[in-house]
């Protein structure tokens, strides 16, 4: 018996398993992740062993903005899984899915402030439906249609910037065949957000030489299984009803990703309505870089009624999340 005990002790000593191993997520964080990300999640340590400075997890706008699935992918697949540094290793062969979810929760906990909208409701942007989640994005939105031998073209530049935890403002400048005749400005505030749903209200003003149109709106989104459902309703209220008409605009989107990568294809369709006019906009979106910070979408708005006066309009966008690294660092 003493021989067996001796052999077991020797085996354990050789394998190093006599050292106590961490068992809880905070213990594992301290023993493993803190080596690069620091015990407090700031990424600042005295003796770094990697050449890339990890992101600061106490910065709430970083830790709250993306869905759990992206964080889980980063831990499971390592940095390259989400287009970030290959110095972040993959843990998918050494941790269970439950442990990985535990680490995501632990990382989220480094944001000490409450009130930030949940990143799980940061859904892919539809082409026409206004998404509810506040963003830091710059977009180019082209649209083109042919009717009776004439081509109508519009390219809109749109700048969006988050304000505080839950708000955002945007400025858009559409350029049409006739040049620039309008400037759009809007503010949006996310009133409610939980792990799967978000609801926001906003006000947009479209100012042209002829008339100003105020457009109060609501936007909402939710996730049902793997499907994104988003909706947007607004009322267009011109200051001069002789120069522009009131309108009731409503958009609904349903879509889903084809995989969990930031470079996934997202297939979706929108129902677009303005008063009695109805249209469908099937669309496809793709993350263009490993981080997904560059993305493009293309679709076609197909009228469902009043087709004699309305043709197909090709629409799309090129999107840049300008605060995100657009490609991986070495």
């Amino acid at each position, binding site marked *: 018996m003493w021989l067996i005990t001796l052999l077991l002790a020797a085996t354990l000593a050789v394998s190093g*398993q006599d050292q106590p191993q961490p068992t809880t997520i905070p213990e594992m964080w301290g023993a493993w992740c803190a080596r690069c990300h620091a015990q407090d999640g700031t990424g600042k340590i005295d003796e770094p062993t990697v050449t890339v400075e990890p992101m600061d997890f106490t910065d709430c706008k970083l830790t709250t903005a993306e869905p759990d699935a992206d964080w889980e992918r980063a831990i499971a697949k390592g940095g390259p899984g989400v287009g970030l540094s290959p110095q972040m*290793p993959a843990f998918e062969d050494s*941790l269970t899915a439950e442990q990985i979810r535990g680490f995501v929760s632990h990382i989220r906990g480094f944001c000490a402030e409450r009130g930030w909208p949940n990143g799980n409701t940061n859904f892919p942007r539809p082409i026409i439906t206004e998404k509810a989640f506040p963003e830091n994005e710059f977009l180019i939105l082209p649209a083109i249609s042919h009717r009776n031998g004439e081509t109508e073209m519009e390219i809109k530049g749109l700048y969006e910037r988050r304000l505080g935890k839950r708000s955002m403002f945007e400025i858009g400048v559409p350029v049409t065949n006739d040049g620039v005749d309008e400037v759009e400005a809007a503010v949006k505030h996310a009133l409610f957000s939980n792990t799967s749903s978000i609801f926001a209200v906003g006000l947009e003003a479209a100012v042209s030489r002829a008339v100003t149109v105020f457009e109060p709106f609501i936007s909402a989104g939710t996730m049902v299984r793997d499907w994104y459902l988003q909706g947007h309703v607004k009322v267009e209220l011109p200051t001069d009803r002789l120069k522009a008409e009131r309108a009731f605009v409503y958009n609904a989107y349903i879509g889903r990703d084809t995989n969990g990568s930031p470079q996934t294809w997202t297939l979706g369709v929108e129902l677009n309505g303005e008063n009695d006019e109805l249209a469908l906009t099937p669309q496809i979106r793709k993350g263009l870089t490993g981080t997904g910070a560059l993305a493009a979408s293309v679709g076609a708005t197909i009228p469902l009624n009043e087709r004699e006066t309305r043709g197909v309009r090709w629409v799309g966008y090129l999107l840049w999340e300008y605060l995100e690294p657009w490609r991986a660092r070495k």
Partner: protein
Amino acid sequence: MGRLLALGILGTLACAQIAAAQTGSVTGTISTTAKGAVPIRVTIDQKVCGAELPDEAIVATAQGQLANAVVILTGVKRAAGAEGTVMNDKCRFAPRVQLARPNSSVKTSSKDPVLHTTQAQLENGRTIFNVAIPVPGITISKPIGAAGVIRLNCNTHPWMRGWMVVTDEAAAISGADGRFTIDNVPPGTYEARVWHEALKGAPQKITITAGKPTEISFQLK
């Protein structure tokens, strides 16, 4: 039945002897005048890694016989071998240098109760995999691609370095005495080239004769 088995064994041995007689081998010594660097002072995980580790970039005897150099015979193809293992052992990759086949896989494991990572990088810096091994005893298998040299790093212990020379050609790694041997080489004239992580040596033409070893030596600078 027993007689048949004995005949079979004798036949196999005879074939092997005939094959050996029809092929030759190359053997030799790799040497250098370069000296290894001073030991690495360890400041992380000293309980597991120790306070000091040898710098194994150049491992040579007092007489200059160099270990961990790879001699490759250009054009002599070899069949696939067993899947290699990279062991994280006392904060070193063991072995430091190993051979691997193109489009095969490699296992990585650890004996150390500290977080190691095995990051495999190609010569152009592209990472082909980087896996975490947070606890001892886990073994992870990862694919490797085309021929070339793969560098192994550990992101938590920056001094750790390992190398995989990926080739489908006949090759051998020099031992602690600087010696290497490549057997079963068909007679002919070949180019023998040498790879080392820190030193370089010129390729040489060698002629292999059936049934006897051909001796060559490399001097690396």
